[in-house]
């Protein structure tokens, strides 16, 4: 179980990116992290995986614990070693490596060759498209294929928790639902916990067990995904829906929509 307790994240010593953020990710759960641009979704994931330091960011207050062990002072490769795999935003494939080599890089820390091979075929089972492209340089794959590849690569690490940063970014709706179906399947069959940061809340809330809404670096709302999807504020801001069918700008929101919390 991953537990984030009241963290504060500061970039370059001055820019406050997160404040008083607390989250819990129980084993085997999918947690959605939704919010608009700059709300702190990526920063939250980066502070968990430790890559925050590469951008001169720091968790200055609070703690992040994985199974009772404090991890917020560790470097990224140590965090990867204890079972957290971060899939960065923007499909960061190793462009010069082939699809299969990319997948094998996911298993970098593993020594069990036989199991790695089995997992490779398991990935090809989940993402049949990747098998047909296994000898292709990954830099030449399409956006959707690259997104599948980085998710598959993260799975090859057999993490306890996988952090996905905007898997839907720039993809066609059909492809998004396809990828989300597979993510759900991976979660059910392989018991991998996931945190999914998403701007398009519909897709993420559809498969998540629980959700957090971030706004300006704070948790504005949280709840089970059904409750959250039904919440008026979330509907208006992140799903772009409202009862009357007219567009509502974020700035026109009633102040009561902020900071409301339906359950703890």
């Amino acid at each position, binding site marked *: 179980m991953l537990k984030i307790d009241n963290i504060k994240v500061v970039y370059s010593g001055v820019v406050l990116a997160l404040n008083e953020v607390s989250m819990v990710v129980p084993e085997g759960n999918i947690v959605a992290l939704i919010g608009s641009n700059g709300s702190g979704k990526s920063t939250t994931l980066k502070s968990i*995986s*430790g*890559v925050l330091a*590469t951008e001169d960011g720091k968790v200055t207050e609070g703690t992040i614990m994985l199974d009772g062990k404090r991890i917020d002072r560790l*470097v*990224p*490769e140590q*965090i*990867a*070693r204890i079972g957290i*795999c*971060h899939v*960065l935003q923007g499909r*960061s*494939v*190793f*462009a*010069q*490596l082939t699809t299969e*080599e990319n997948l*094998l*890089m*996911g298993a*970098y*820390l593993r020594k069990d060759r036989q199991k790695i091979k089995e997992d490779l075929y398991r990935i090809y089972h989940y993402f049949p498209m990747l098998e047909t492209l296994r000898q292709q340089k990954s830099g030449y794959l399409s956006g959707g294929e690259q997104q599948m590849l980085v998710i598959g*690569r*993260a799975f090859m*690490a057999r993490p306890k928790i996988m952090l996905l940063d905007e898997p839907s970014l720039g993809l066609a709706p059909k492809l998004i639902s396809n990828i989300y179906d597979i993510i759900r399947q991976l979660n059910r069959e392989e018991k991998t916990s996931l945190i999914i940061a998403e701007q398009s809340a519909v897709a993420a809330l559809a498969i998540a067990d629980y959700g957090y809404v971030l706004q300006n670096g704070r948790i504005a709302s949280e709840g089970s995904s059904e409750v959250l999807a039904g919440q008026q504020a979330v509907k208006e801001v992140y799903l772009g829906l409202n009862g009357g069918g007219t567009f509502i700008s974020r700035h026109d929101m009633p102040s009561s929509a902020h900071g409301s919390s339906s359950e703890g």
Partner: protein
Amino acid sequence: MILPIALSQTGNLNWLSFINFTLITIIAVLGLNVITGMSGQVSLGHSAFIMVGGYTVAVLTTQAGWSLWLALAAGVLISGVVGIAVAIPAMRLKGFYVAVVTLAFFFIAQYIIKSLDITGGIHGLVGVPYPTIGGLKFNSDVSWYYLLFFFTVLCILVSANLIRSRFGRAFLAIRDNDITASSLGINVPVTKIRAFFIGALFAGLAGGLWTSYMSVVRMDQFTIWDSIWYVGMIIIGGVGSTAGTVMGVIFLLLIRQVLHVIGASGLVPLSSNLSAALIYAIYGVAIILFISFQPYGLIAVWRKARANYKRWPFGV
């Protein structure tokens, strides 16, 4: 394999020593390809790694009386250790700054070797022995050709297999995306140190062999210009590719040699000064042309040619 015999029959030993020099350079630049090509750490200090290998062999054989093979092994290892020492300050840096650190390392290494007595100062050392295997002594260009050919093939195999291993893929991973690499559990600083270590091993081997082949070692064998030539060879050959590196070395050295021959033959009225300047001009133009029109290097030209040959008559 029969090339050296043919050349020695015609009495054209100039070309044979050129080929031997090319083989040594291939070994050295394969090392730079690990550091710069595969791992993306631009190193301008590669000459200095070669220098460390060369001087270690020369000092151990002429001053300490070691056998050449033992000294060569020591030279390779010491060069590798120096590689680690350079990587430690360089590992926290990226791109341009790594280049500056390695540049500084070159001048520091040069200064130290120049100031020591044991290395013969600016005069260098003479009388480095030739290698022997059993009763066979490598004292001719032809025999050296076979020896160097063996080492070059060995290094090519090591380099080509490196890139297919988990170990070598980590180099490409930190070059392509170091943050992603670290979140997959790759220790980025340690991987950079490994790259410098392995690259310096190749350079040490090349330096040791070169010293023995020339039987002397001198400061001016290892210049900063060579370091820059090596980087150019990688760019022209195809960054990160073993075959490309070999092609890049041969291509640039061949241009240099052909200009030398033309200059020396007197066919074209070129003074030796002018032809020397011309080499640098052509080198510069070649790099600019490659970066603008063929950034993936000679290896990409070769792959395209091969693909077109297979597809004939449906080429592009």
